[in-house]
């Protein structure tokens, strides 16, 4: 029955949402900065994949490996150069500042790539896979798997690596971390770098599925917001859970109320969670 199909759509979409939101949630959780450029970073990642594939014939899977360090570096520099000045500033300043930066980034992309929609069409198209009555496009499936791998990688980095532990320490208690000899400024830069890298890689994956244009950055940002609040701030598993919940809810919601209500549903959910459960589904005041 097609309910299975809707569930499958919801799950695949949910994993993509998780990948979109994980980096955003990390930056918001650790730096307490809402990065409105997150959507544009994702679109930039898509352009990278498109340019690499159409220009140099490099397949998106390889571009993925290149995108991670590239965006990490870009994010690191942007944080040290610009955002570090306003880290302690009230939310008003940081939110408006990233809004201004996003205007610049979006306009630059518009000039560089023109506004027409670009499409990354794999030469041997991956086609679709039928599992019983459920039909799933292979490109989305592969993108979903990579998305999960990426999110898991971020989770492991935060858990196992030195810089990851430092990021968590800063998130839990900035002053205590400083006393432990953690160089907070470079940790902020690292966290922002990881956030940007996640966005860039998500962009590469999304290039396979959606048309690429600077104008879809707001759509990605909207999803990142909802998933991040749903799942719980700064929590990677929270992002995965939030993504899945949103993906499934949107799929079934669109069926029940009609597709044009999907946006209303997601933002309505956002408000409800902000008011009644700001720490999200599984997020805690601390870290997960």
């Amino acid at each position: 029955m097609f309910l299975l199909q809707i569930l499958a759509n919801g799950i695949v979409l949910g994993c993509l949402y998780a990948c979109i939101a994980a980096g955003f949630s990390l930056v918001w959780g650790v730096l307490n900065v809402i990065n409105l450029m997150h959507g544009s970073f994702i679109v930039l990642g898509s352009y990278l994949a498109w340019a690499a594939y159409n220009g140099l014939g490099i397949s998106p899977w390889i571009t993925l490996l290149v995108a991670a360090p590239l965006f990490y570096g870009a994010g690191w520099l942007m944080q040290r150069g610009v955002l570090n000045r306003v880290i302690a500033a009230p939310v008003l300043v940081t939110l408006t500042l990233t809004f201004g930066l996003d205007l610049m980034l979006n306009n630059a992309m518009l000039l560089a790539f023109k506004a027409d929609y670009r499409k990354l069409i794999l030469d041997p198209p991956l086609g679709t896979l039928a599992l019983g009555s459920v039909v799933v496009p292979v490109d989305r499936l592969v993108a979903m798997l990579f998305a999960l791998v990426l999110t898991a990688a971020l989770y492991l980095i935060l858990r196992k690596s030195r810089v990851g532990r430092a990021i968590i320490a800063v998130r839990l208690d900035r002053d205590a971390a400083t006393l432990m000899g953690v160089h907070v400024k470079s940790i902020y830069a690292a966290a922002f770098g990881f956030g940007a890298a996640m966005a860039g890689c998500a962009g590469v994956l999304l290039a396979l599925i959606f048309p690429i244009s600077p104008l879809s950055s707001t759509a990605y940002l909207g999803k990142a917001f909802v998933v991040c609040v749903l799942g719980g701030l700064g929590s990677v598993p929270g992002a995965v859970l939030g993504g899945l919940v949103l993906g499934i809810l949107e799929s079934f919601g669109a069926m029940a109320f009609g597709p044009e209500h999907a946006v209303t549903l997601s933002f309505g959910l956002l408000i409800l969670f902000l008011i009644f459960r700001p720490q999200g589904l599984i997020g805690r005041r601390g870290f997960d």
Partner: protein
Amino acid sequence: MTTGARNALLVGAVLLLAALPLVGDTYALRLGTFACMYAVMAVSWNVIGGMAGYPSFATAAFFGLGAYAGGVLLSKGGGLAGALLLSGTLAFAGAMLLGVVLLRLRGHYFAVASLAVAEVLRELANTATDLTGGGMGLNIPLAATSGGPQAEASFYFLLMWALLLLTLGVVLALERSRLGFGLQCIRQNESAADMIGVNATLYKSLAFAISGVFVAMAGTVYAAWVHYIEPPDVFDILFSVKPIVMALLGGLGSTAGALLGAFAFLAIEETVWRNSLEIHTGLLGLLIVVLLLFLPNGIVSLARRLRGSGASGG
């Protein structure tokens, strides 16, 4: 120069603006109307953002609500006065109700929730097709002003200008009132304010409502003025961000700063838009970044710093 003198100077300047219809052509009047509209938004936002210290991104929601509430009444034959009254009361009541729930949040959470309110309202306007025309937009009939474009442009300019005066009157009185004093307490230390008897929930909701009522009325005037509105235009996120940039440009916290910031912002935006076809959005972004990084206290402090005097204005 004390605050009182500076406020009087600025209100005087606004009064002078009334002469624009005599001297300006329809385009100058259009710019003047936009300037007054931006000023109403910036001054109103300052009540919740500057005075109470709650970073509201709901200005677009109030503007869109006013545009559609007033627009629907006008398209069904209602008078302009009735439409203004309707959108004003709707915004005030809506803000009070919403405020009780929304204002329990603080900082980022409040900012994001207020941002989401505009998104939800826009989608509701988009889907309630039979009431609002949905994605097909709403026709608002040409108001019965006889006379050519100059007369109509002057009419709407003076209407928006009068709304600005009303807003300034209320907000300047508020600034010196007990409510204004209480809001300052809340901004500086809300728990201390609680302990000395300030009813923070009520005061914050009142501030949120006042920050919405005149913006909604401006939305109605806007709808009557352009005769055709679509949800994405009147619920545009820029209507939430620009007033904040104007308040920051003018110097956060003071009504005069917001007013000055609004006119300065319009001048910059118009110059940038007029002279560069391709990169004006980018330049607007650059303005915001430069402003926030190098001039956090806005033009008011700029003037003071340029004079190098230690005058304790504001």
